């Protein structure tokens, strides 16, 4: 039968952002794919070479605009490795709380965008409604809804606001009840299961070799997570283990497993936040003024030439990483080179290949299940 190239162009509901997927189609079956990235390449790495270390954080917020907090922290940890800065204990707890709330927000945004791809439009509004609760928490912490510029080299910009703990506990309690409703509409619906189970198979070793990590890898049955493999922050002091899903076929994880992993991960993140609120040194009710040594330690502003620092970080979509080299312009105030590892920049070409053999209608199901975020892909 004649095969034809279809361009699922930059502007397409399936792409969750601006990138093109050229698909060679034989009838309904996908025969070959060709991803095309770079539409919103803003050259963040070049811009960061002309900014100080504090000025870079707002740009890192805007890398993946759905999980700004995780990306800003990913940069800050590598900057602290470069500038050799110690972070006070309370600041690490505040960072953990902020990051885990952001992970729930990001996964909710993914679920809200993924289910209309498969056809269930109701979940979109439910997810935004529940995401609104967590966005309000982040607005208290960071000052605005999506981009916070919250972490500083050596600590955080502001402590937990007054009354934050009581609101956070109330919202998480309600959200954990609401998750059961999602499962009633998705897990217990044959049509959803039929569209996601057995679709988009990817085995663990193939994914690791191709550089795919995070929830997509944990869906294939291995509980590898950068938060315990290369520990940072205070994850090792919380009673926590990563959510892992037993793959449903010998050929690896399918879309349903990836969906299950993210639902589990939301629950784990909520429990982690509750535990962190109880264990935070100085108590969750107290509030230290900005710049207080409990939440921010003094940090040098210059990095000598030849020094370098990098840090692997568990982003909501995989393992993100910043590699900084010191000694840039302004006698070391600017970094010489900032290199950003975006998990989705590596995963999207892999997923494009995973689609071969499935139907056209499976393309959004498979691509959506890997949670692409194009802001971080194109940097």
């Amino acid at each position, binding site marked *: 039968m004649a095969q034809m190239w279809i361009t699922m162009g930059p502007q397409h509901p399936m792409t969750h952002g601006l990138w093109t997927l050229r698909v060679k189609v034989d009838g309904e079956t996908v025969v070959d794919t060709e991803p095309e990235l770079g539409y919103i390449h803003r050259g963040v790495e070049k811009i960061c070479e002309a900014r100080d270390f504090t000025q870079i954080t707002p740009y890192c917020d805007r890398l993946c605009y759905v999980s700004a907090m995780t990306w800003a922290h990913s940069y800050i940890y590598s900057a602290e490795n470069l500038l050799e800065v110690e972070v006070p204990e309370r600041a690490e707890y505040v960072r953990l709380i902020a990051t885990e709330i952001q992970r729930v927000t990001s996964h909710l945004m993914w679920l809200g965008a993924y289910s209309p791809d498969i056809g269930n439009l109701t979940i979109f509004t439910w997810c935004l409604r529940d995401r609104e609760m967590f966005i309000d928490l982040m607005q208290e912490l960071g000052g605005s809804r999506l981009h916070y510029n919250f972490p500083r080299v050596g600590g955080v910009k502001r402590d937990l606001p*007054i009354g934050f703990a009581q609101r956070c506990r109330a919202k998480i309690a309600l959200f954990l009840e609401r998750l059961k409703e999602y499962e009633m509409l998705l897990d217990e619906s044959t049509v959803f299961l039929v569209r996601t189970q057995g679709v988009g198979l990817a085995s663990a070793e193939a994914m690791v070799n191709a550089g795919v990590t995070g929830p997509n890898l944990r869906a294939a049955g291995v509980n590898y997570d950068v938060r315990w493999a290369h520990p940072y922050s205070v994850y090792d002091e919380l009673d926590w283990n990563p959510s892992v899903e037993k793959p449903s076929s010998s050929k690896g994880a399918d879309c349903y497993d990836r969906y299950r992993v993210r639902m589990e991960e939301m629950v784990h993140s909520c429990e982690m936040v509750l535990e962190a609120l109880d264990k935070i040194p100085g108590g969750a009710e107290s509030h230290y003024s900005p710049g207080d040594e409990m939440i921010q330690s003094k940090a040098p502003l210059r990095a000598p030439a030849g020094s370098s620092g990098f840090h692997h970080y568990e982003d909501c979509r995989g393992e993100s990483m910043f590699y900084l080299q010191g000694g840039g312009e302004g006698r070391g105030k600017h970094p010489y080179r900032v290199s950003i590892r975006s998990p989705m920049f590596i995963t999207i070409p892999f997923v494009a290949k995973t689609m071969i053999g499935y139907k056209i209608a499976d393309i959004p199901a498979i691509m959506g299940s890997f949670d692409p975020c194009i802001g971080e892909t194109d940097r």
Partner: protein
Amino acid sequence: MATHPRAQPNFRNLFIKPFWMTLVTALRTLGRPIFGWGYHNKSEEMLDEHSKNRVSGSVMNDVSSHDYAADREGSDLYPNLWKPMTLMYPYERLEDLEPWLFVPGQYNGRIGVIWETCTACKLCVKICPNDCLHMSTELRVDILDGAEGENAGYGSNLEVGGWAAVEVSGAKEFQETRNPVTSHDAPIDEFRFGEVIDLSGDTATVRWNDTGGEDIVERGELLKADDQIISGRIDIGRCMFCGLCMEACHFTSFFMTNEYDGMSGFTRQELWFDAARTRVLIGEHQEVVDAELAKRATKERVKREKKAAKVKAEA
């Protein structure tokens, strides 16, 4: 394998549970929870004391009388607590419904500058990642410097790294005789400014701004000059509200108010906010402004006492 116990693609899951769940959600939005589910929209203690007395005086909305829920509290417009969460923006405002989100100083809203206490140190201009802050300043001689009589000694004195000025000879006479309407040549500057390199005894080495050359000048002739701010402009079209300028300002004259609307325009020029549009309600930040002015006053008093003590010591 499905870790969810009932997640199997069988006949029962074909439509029963999804239908039931959407029906329940629909009935829940109609008002008082007909179907209970106590956890849903349960009243929660969300308003902390700090926010309560801050907004208890609000005219628009008797905030403290609301009963709040975790997903969003009731509103005066739609009294019953259980309703869809959508905020009817122009008619319900988020700062009325959730006052704890808009604690002044913790919300990155419109930029507000108290131009009076701004000392044109340009720290904010330097820290801004997007270069949105443009400030034009001018070197001026402080008239209090050479003052004699009862306000002698009020002006500040020369410092290393500060600015100094020398009167241009003949400038005053030229100024009197020049008739600005008919004169063809431009007015000449009254002073010649330079940066003070070092002050040893009664002579000072100054690097002149116009020629860049350095020479040693008698301290007596030198007047203290200062970099005064003329106008400031913030390009809101470029600003990403990161709040670094607020943290960089040492003189607490830079605030981010909690206004989030009213910053729109049709052209890019309209998005250039001049001093008038970056006003801050002094009342809101009264205590902070008073603290700053008090700090400067004490610095001034200490300087004057030191000067008086020096004068008494010489006498």
